[in-house]
């Protein structure tokens, strides 16, 4: 016996440790999740402390109403989120609620939505019970959203597949103390000339006026540079849908209605040069974190930022310097260089809604998961959630943190009209030349000299490739519509009208009219606009005469 014990001692120690571990873990689990307790897992990529704190607080609040439900978070880094999502979904171990949209190509997410997520259309069309007692009581959920829940609707599935919980905005953040010390101003100017003068003052002190990176460039481009190109819309929006497609720009170039010398295009690039001259040297090679670091170290005064970064930047600055938020600088209508192209403020889409969560099919308690999501999407709780995180609520009437008031979107204004890339070779060429322009290695005239002939010649091939893509899409649409048609054919009598309505509207929108639009587009590119050089938003002589006759009648 002693001999046996001696020989088996190691094994017994391991076995004992195993039994102890099982008992400890088991008792811990029972304590944490006693019988009858429902544990909801929520997976997301928001590692900011505010998000996790907010979920914990809202989960505790939810537990007051539903004592048998506890919420556990899986916070996964952005860099591995795509792989994590894939393994969890395919392995059948996905959390009940999952933040969607990051780390994988769109078509992959589309496939995952179909296979692994619960459609939320029925929820979207019902009132949110957690809005009881508010002005949103009885209002269908989708109408309680600032964007009408458009962002959550997946046209390829014809279902709402997620519910978003926040809205985002982009503004210019500045170091108020440093600005005052270097320029004597407490507030940042929003008029371009004043802003450039302030930047020159800051530069004279040996500091970078604006911290930027390749990540931040798009914010400046979208909010400041592109908007000067808006007048081009009147030259090239041939299908008159109110926005400029890259095919339309190409047709306008071919027809001689637009060129790289078009004054608003030149002005946009001149403004880009004037402002990026105040970015720190080498910004095109830097990442987001490097620009943030420069700002946090007080080696730059301004930093473009989104609401998603605002709170953590504010926290970093706390006790060190005071942070201010302002709109991006823009030229005044009286500006001697850009004034004639300034038609209004920059439009910001209200649809910039995000932080979306879907309910997975493997959830053992999908009804509870949906209920918790509705709780988070209710007016009161969405306000609370976003107040803790420092983001803008996604729900109508949910008040935002006063510190974020300057992020409120500008819903009336102008927008860019210069999509010059047609994909393929033209996009590569454009990116190469843009990189050189950004680092001041070539002038705008040189960029135009190299790009325009290439764009006009090579663009036709890229345009034709885009048409081939359209043909591929036509077959995919056919595939999808056959599924909708079958659903209509097999649906019970009560559901049939809705199913057929969906089928008819989609057939018209996706298959019937686009073929004609494609034919007109092709003719436009090959033959130029009908009627010579009359732009789409120009009056013809016949219309002018008709109006003349009417007003003088």
């Amino acid at each position, binding site marked *: 016996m002693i001999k046996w014990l001696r020989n088996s001692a190691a094994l017994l120690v391991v076995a004992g440790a195993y039994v102890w571990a099982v008992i400890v873990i088991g008792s811990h689990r029972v304590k944490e999740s006693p019988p009858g307790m429902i544990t909801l897992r929520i997976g997301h990529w928001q590692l900011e402390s505010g998000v996790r704190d907010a979920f914990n607080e809202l989960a505790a609040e939810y537990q007051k109403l539903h004592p048998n439900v506890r919420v556990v978070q899986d916070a996964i880094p952005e860099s591995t989120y795509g792989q994590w999502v894939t393994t969890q979904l395919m392995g059948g171990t996905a959390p009940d609620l999952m933040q969607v949209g990051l780390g994988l190509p769109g078509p992959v997410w589309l496939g995952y939505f*179909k*296979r692994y997520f619960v459609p939320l*259309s029925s929820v979207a*069309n019902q009132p949110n019970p957690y809005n009881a007692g508010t002005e949103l009581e009885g209002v269908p959920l989708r109408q309680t959203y600032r964007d*009408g829940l458009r962002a959550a*609707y997946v*046209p390829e599935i*014809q279902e709402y597949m997620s519910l978003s919980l926040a809205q985002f905005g982009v503004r210019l953040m500045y170091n108020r103390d440093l600005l005052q010390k270097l320029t004597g101003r407490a507030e940042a100017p929003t008029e371009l000339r004043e802003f450039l003068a302030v930047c020159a003052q800051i530069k004279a002190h040996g500091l970078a006026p604006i911290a930027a990176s390749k990540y931040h460039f798009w914010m400046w481009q979208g909010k400041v540079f592109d908007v000067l190109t808006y007048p081009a*819309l009147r030259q090239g929006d041939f299908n*008159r*849908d*109110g*926005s400029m497609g890259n095919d339309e720009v190409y047709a306008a170039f071919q027809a001689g209605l637009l060129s790289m010398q078009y004054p608003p295009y030149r002005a946009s690039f001149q403004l880009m040069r004037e402002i990026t001259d105040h970015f720190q040297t080498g910004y095109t090679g830097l990442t987001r974190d490097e620009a943030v670091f420069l700002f946090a170290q007080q080696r730059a005064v301004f930093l473009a930022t989104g609401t998603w970064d605002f709170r953590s930047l504010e926290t970093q600055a706390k006790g060190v310097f005071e942070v201010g938020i302002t709109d991006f600088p823009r030229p005044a209508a009286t500006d001697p260089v850009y004034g004639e192209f300034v*038609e*209004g403020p920059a*439009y910001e*889409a209200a649809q910039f809604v995000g932080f979306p969560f879907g309910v997975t099919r493997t959830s053992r308690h999908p009804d509870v998961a949906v209920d918790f999501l509705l709780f988070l999407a209710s007016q009161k709780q969405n306000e609370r959630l976003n107040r803790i995180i420092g983001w803008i609520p996604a729900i109508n009437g949910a008040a935002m943190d006063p510190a974020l008031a300057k992020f409120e979107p500008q*819903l*009336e204004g*102008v927008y860019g009209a210069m999509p010059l890339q047609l994909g393929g070779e033209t996009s590569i060429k454009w990116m190469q030349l843009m990189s050189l322009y950004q680092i001041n290695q070539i002038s705008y005239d040189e960029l135009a000299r190299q790009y325009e002939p290439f764009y006009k010649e090579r663009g036709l091939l890229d345009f034709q490739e885009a048409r*081939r893509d359209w*043909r591929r899409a*036509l*077959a*995919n649409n*056919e*595939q999808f519509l*056959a*599924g909708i*048609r*079958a*659903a209509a*054919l*097999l649906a019970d009598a009560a559901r049939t009208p809705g199913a*057929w*309505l*969906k089928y*008819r*509207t989609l*057939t*018209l929108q996706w298959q*019937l*009219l686009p*073929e*004609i639009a*494609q*034919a007109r587009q092709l003719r436009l590119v090959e033959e130029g606009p009908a009627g010579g050089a009359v732009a*789409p*938003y120009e*009056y013809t002589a*016949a*219309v*002018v*005469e008709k*109006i*003349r*006759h*009417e*007003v*003088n009648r």
Partner: protein
Amino acid sequence: MIRLLPLLVMLSLVGSAGAGETNLVAQGWAAYRLGEFDRATRFFESAGPTDAAAVYGLATTWAWRRPKEDRGRAEQLYHEVIRLAPASEWAAWSWLGLARLQHVVPVGQEPNYPKVRAAYQAVIDRFPRHPASTEAFLQQQATLVAALNPNEARTALAAMEKFLAEQPQSPYVSAVYSLQAECFQTLGEPAAQLAASLRAWETTEVDPENPRSDAAGTYWKLATLAEFEAGDFATARKFYGKLIAEYPKDQRKFPAKQALARMAELESRLRAEGAPR
């Protein structure tokens, strides 16, 4: 009792055969919609080679699955449905399926339009007033309209006028008016184009579940068509106004306000210049 067991099992299977097949077809379509085409094929095949609904599902799967589509097999199976149940719902949609195979051709090929139109005509002739036939009619006319040729546009207009006279209650009238508007654009008749576009808007069906089917884009198109093509400033003002009032968050709100100012400015200038002598 044990001896009776196989018989009882067989009887129970026979009794539930119809329901089971329907179920298999439904499961096949569910798999199809998830993009799981192999599984869809297995369900449809399990329902049996004489079930027209299942064979139709199988044909459609082979026609539109990507990758591994087999258009020849699809065509053969559509003909099989027509042979199995020539007067059925499934036959009507199979005829349309055959036409769609002619029309939606692989990348790199162009449809043979005379053949495509003949294939649509085959549906129209065999199943008049059936939804498959109406869709075939619209697709047929769309091929004429897409030619952007005045002769074809006039042919299509005449056919659509007849359709509207015969089937004014069809749920597809809005689509017909939309196609007519395209014809008038080709013919350079802006007043008629605007009138047809307005009728299309008045009769349009809206999917209330689709948040993207808002009318902002339609209002913008009607307004700009009225302003720049038809010179009908009253209609233009009406639709710019509707866009501003009903879609205050739409990006076209600012351009709509600019348009209202632009029209007023033109009228004012022309008034000042006086009538032409």
